[in-house]
């Protein structure tokens, strides 16, 4: 595709052992067509159970009330919105890899973008649960939050509210990511279709691939469409977390009301997103033996990105403190001191360790290129990023302006099961994805091989 256009220095580390086009097809399509390894069944059994737990918790929540969570006054938002922001953050890596790295002609994105895009979709799906179910009356919110004409009520949304901006941003993001993902998927679906053995499979894939036949005329529009989508998704992905950060930045609560939030949140999102990609990728790479296509080069680059964004996040933490002090605003100063040394100090320092200190290990090439190390670190980073959201939301609310109204938030078992359940849903969707769809874009890898061979002259 477009990155073929520039015959840049081939980096052999991106595909190992000069596979032919057919090898790519056989390898990638093979995963989908063959039986899944045992571990897959075990995994989906577990994650499926968690997903059911999520469903149960939400049912309990809707029938009983928000009171089943630990939320209280003053802490009106707690784990619910923490989870929302966390998952939305995770959901940034995919689009980022597919769109931004694409625009920047980063060829190493090729074999991980499909994977990351899928992850984005599932993360956004998980995120989407919380804004709806954190409301006291979801059965109303489900349509009152959208500008659906209501002849009987005749009242509209308040477009001054960041929550409404959220509704539009998140739903747009979900839709566009899905389009982007599906568009990229169509040619691969055609490949699967043409390899399909059973009639049913043929029909289904035939319909899904919309009769794609790889005609040169198709590719012409297709490549432009892909480019445009990348161009649109890039500002979109930046806007989404910016708008999510507005939920806080636009408020009057010390610790929320901060202009640094948009860049800070976006960096954090990329940070956690990449961490999640690495976590899952190293597993998939192992289980499905994809070392040929997902090389150490890919992983190392992602670790570098994590190191960079980790530094940005750390810088943001520091800046917050400096500004709080520099502003001379007593409430600002208090809120930040309270974060570090107040009742929630443990959350704060967990966040700092996981997000700022530990990623520094990536300066060392040995760590950067060690699969076990990056696996552990990437998980820790996501722990840290979850706590970042917790710290921002809960500590700021728990002690704001009037000391008389200060309170302490304690989660309930329902809170915990809901969070666990959201991971269940995420992973279940993911396992289904690797089971049914090619987790590496065959078309793109072939394109890259072609470019390489064109350069080196020898035939695949």
């Amino acid at each position, binding site marked *: 595709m477009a990155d073929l256009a520039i015959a840049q220095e081939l980096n052999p580390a991106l595909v190992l052992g000069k596979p032919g086009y057919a090898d790519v097809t056989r390898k990638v399509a093979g995963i989908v067509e063959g039986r899944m390894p045992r571990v897959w069944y075990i995994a989906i059994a577990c994650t499926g159970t968690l997903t059911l737990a999520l469903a149960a918790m939400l049912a309990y929540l809707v029938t009983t*009330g928000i*009171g089943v969570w630990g939320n209280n006054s*003053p802490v009106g938002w707690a784990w619910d919105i923490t989870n929302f922001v966390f998952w939305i953050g995770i959901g940034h890596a995919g689009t980022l890899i597919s769109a931004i790295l694409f625009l920047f002609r980063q060829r190493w994105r090729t074999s991980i973008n499909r994977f990351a895009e899928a992850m984005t979709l599932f993360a956004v799906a998980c995120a989407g649960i919380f804004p709806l179910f954190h409301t*006291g009356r979801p059965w109303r919110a489900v349509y*009152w939050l959208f500008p659906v004409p209501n002849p009987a009520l005749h009242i509209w949304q*308040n477009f001054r509210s960041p929550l409404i901006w959220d509704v539009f941003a998140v739903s747009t993001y979900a839709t566009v990511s899905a389009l982007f993902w599906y568009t990229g998927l169509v040619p691969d679906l055609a490949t699967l279709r043409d390899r399909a053995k059973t009639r049913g499979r043929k029909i289904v894939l035939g319909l899904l691939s919309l009769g794609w036949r790889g005609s040169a005329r198709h590719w012409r529009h297709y490549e432009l469409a892909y480019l445009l989508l990348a161009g649109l998704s890039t500002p979109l992905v930046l806007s989404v977390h910016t708008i999510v950060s507005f939920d806080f930045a636009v*408020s009057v609560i010390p610790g929320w009301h901060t202009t640094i939030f948009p860049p800070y949140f976006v960096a954090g999102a990329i940070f956690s997103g990449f961490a999640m990609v690495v976590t899952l990728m190293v597993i998939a790479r192992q289980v499905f033996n994809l070392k040929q296509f997902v090389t150490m080069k890919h992983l190392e680059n992602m670790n570098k990105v994590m190191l960079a964004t980790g530094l940005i996040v750390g810088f943001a933490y520091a800046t917050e403190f400096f500004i709080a002090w520099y502003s001379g605003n007593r409430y600002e100063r208090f809120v930040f001191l309270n974060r570090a040394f107040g009742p929630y100090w443990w959350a704060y320092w967990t966040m700092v360790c996981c997000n700022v200190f530990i990623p520094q290990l990536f300066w060392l090439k040995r760590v950067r290129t060690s699969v076990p190390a990056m696996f552990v670190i990437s998980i820790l980073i996501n722990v840290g990023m979850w706590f970042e959201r917790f710290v921002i939301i809960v500590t700021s609310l728990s002690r704001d*302006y009037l000391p*008389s109204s200060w309170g*302490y938030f304690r989660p309930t078992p329902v809170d915990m099961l809901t969070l666990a359940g959201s991971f269940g849903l995420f992973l279940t969707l993911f396992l289904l994805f690797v089971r049914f769809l090619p987790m590496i874009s065959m078309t793109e890898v072939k394109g890259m091989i072609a470019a390489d061979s064109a350069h080196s002259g020898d035939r695949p």
Partner: protein
Amino acid sequence: MSERNPCNPVSLPGDEFPEGASVLDATSRRTLLKLMGASLGLAGLTACSRPVENILPAAKGVEDQIPGNPLFYATAMSLGGVATGLLVEAHDGRPTKIEGNPDHPFSRGAASAFHQASVLGLYDPDRSREVMHEGQPSAWDEFAAFAKGHFSAMAAGERLRFLSQTVNSPSLEAVRAQALNRFPQAKWIEYEPISEDEALAGAELAFGRAVRPIYHFDKADAILSLDSDFLALDSQTVGYTKDFAARRRVASEKDTMNRLYIVESQFSVTGAMADHRLRMRSGDVPEFVADLARELGLLPAGLNVLNNDPRRRWLAALARDLKKNAGRSLVVAGPRQPAAVHAAAHWINQALGNAGKTVTYVETPRRPQIAALKELAAEMAAGRVETLVILGGNPAYDAPADLEFSRFVKKVAVTIHLGVERNETGVLAKWHLPEAHYLECWGDARALDGTASIQQPLIQPLYGGRTAVETLALISGHKDQRAYDIVRNCWLAQWPGAHGEKTWRKCLHDGVIPLTASPRVEAAPDAKRIAAALAARRTATGIEVNFYPSASTWDGRFANNGWLQEAPDPMTKLTWDNAALLSPATARQFGVANGEVISIAAGGREIEMPVWIQPGHADQSISLALGYGRTACGHVGHGAGHDTYALRTSAAPHVVAGASVTRTDRTYKLATTQEHHSMEGRPLVREASLDTYRKQPAFAHKPDEKTNLFQLFPRFSYDQGNQWGMAIDLNACIGCNACVLACQAENNIPIVGKEQVMRGREMHWIRLDRYYGGPEEDPRAVTQPVACQQCENAPCESVCPVAATNHSPEGLNDMAYNRCVGTRYCANNCPYKVRRFNFLDYHKDVQEVEKMAFNPDVTVRMRGVMEKCTYCVQRIQEKKIQAQAEGRRALRDGKILTACQQTCPADAIVFGNINDPQSRVTQLKKQNRDYTILTELNTRPRTSYLAKLRNPNPELA
């Protein structure tokens, strides 16, 4: 009180309505809608198939009653034998809201938390519903039959005893006389745990006769309270608060205000208001008084306990101040203090020439109660009592522990208990009779100074209860005498002739009976006796325990009242519990922290209590609230708190000396509504001394405080028509809970229970923030009522995604519950944290009968929606519609009163139209003490505060 009506619909002679018909009739309209509405709204089936719903109009219209329009009736409620005149609002025949009676000398329009909550007590489903005979359901007729046999057989009744609560009802007195006539040998004992025994003894000691002092705080410039919480718990009425607050209100820096000194062990509401507070064990107060007497030259300067004590200086300054204000000063002794202290107080007032000016005396029929009860207990123990008729009260629970009442009552052959609830005593009695609630029955009652009021009912007895008067009449052989006739005849007897009927109706209407105040008496204290008594006192050493009435359950009688149980204690902010209050030092001494259980032993008795550290409490002293740990009071109060009566003996009913404390390893969860007690140096409550105020009248405004801040958008103009606003005078507010309870009653605010309070989910729309300042051991305390500030640039509005909260043209921050989806974003973004969220369905457990207490003019909020103070918008709309109908466009100032404002005994809250330069609220907002909190956020609140002032003695400053 727009429409008060002399004739009472449910008092029509005879029962045209079957029992409870009035109930059904009353529930029919809004309440029915409420129940359905709530469920309908929840299911959201507004447009789908409609359930058939009936309207049940009364078969016969009720005179003067327009369905939907409330009626107001004057009545009176008694607490500890002291009546307060009230005005009760009734919707379609069900009382829903209590207000003070402006014409009553000890209410003047105000009502206390207890009064406000009493309406819930009426509908308490756990109230006694039927006559019980030996634990079996019975009926009034059966009892009547029994009584006929039992009592007519009785001759002079030498083995018959009557035990009642303090009697302050003329009609009951009359019937009592009648009864004692019939049974000349019988004895009548009055007992209430919160009594004025010591005061009476003190008067006896000082004057040789039983007189009651009536204080005139409005005339006093310097006040000394000797362990007396006369603003709250030690006054059963609100009149004193009115008088006191009148002298705290300051219009400008040129004004003066009174000065309050207090010597007390527990940190009381009065203590929080004091300009000088000396924390001291209650047991040391007698010594203190003695020294004060010496300092004032009443006693020969001799041995002086405080001689070389830092408190010496305090005492000297106090003495000089009292002297300086001779005739305008006042010394008040608290009910927990021994007779000597009361006597000394009389003596000092006399010496300072205050008697007749700031304090006057009236005859009182009261006699010491504990002694009498002790005697009765002895007779019971000796088996000399055959029939015991208990008219109200709960001695089995609240009698001094050493009398072992509940043990000896079993030795009595026939015990008859008349009670609003089948309480600890009721379950022991052979016969239990349901008593009518004061809102259900006719009666009369005397106020502090003897002024009588007619107590008229607003509804038929819900559970067929009868009054003490009726029961007594029945016992003494006059069957079917109705309270209405007894009370009426009792008074008509005093107004012979034609105008009798007219006077009767007028008294019903006004709620006070003129010329019934007891005559003043001149009394001269006997210095020698008092001096001797003072000399006789020796300070006991060791830990002391003192008992005080609970701000929620009083003596325990309100234990089943959810509103009161959940109302945070004004000082500790504890709900649903009492605790052992200790000073921080004493807590350190015992090595205990909040919630740790200690066992307190005194006089061979022992109880276990959780600890609550109370800054400003006297060291070496423990305060225990009475009225908790009820075992037979219904599902609300059951198991709330710990019973402290177990430690209270007839010998030392108020202060026990020489107690010992041991730690246990148990802890106990206490629910408090405020977890942080320092203002963190934030300018929330702004306070200064009167002097500072005079020097810098604008002290309430920091120089850097800009009120006209830059804003991105042009400011929305609110200069048309009514613009509602509120001003709260922190200098007047004493922090009693009256406004909280009034708001709860007016706005259908649910209770959430202890567990939810611990989670921080209480629903009160107005809360009293109490902050401590200064040293932890001996801090000052301030209270600040905070409700929705009705910001013009409301942060809550801009963040609501569905526009459920937005602004009215009159500057109200509207909240449309039915639009709310419950994101809680508004609450998060409210800097004042005044929004309340229905985390669960808090009305789930409200029973049918309790629903009658709902105010039909306010929506009952469902689970999942946000709510908050509305400035009582229902009252605003009602009055506006009225005005329009009466062709007046401009509303008269003061025509609309918010619930909190109307009941406030200190008149600290003023609401009105800030667009009207003449309105009181505008006048207050013009004052230089006026400020808004968090001004710098540019929320432009409509509620502002008048800074607090203290008036310290320059000598001590």
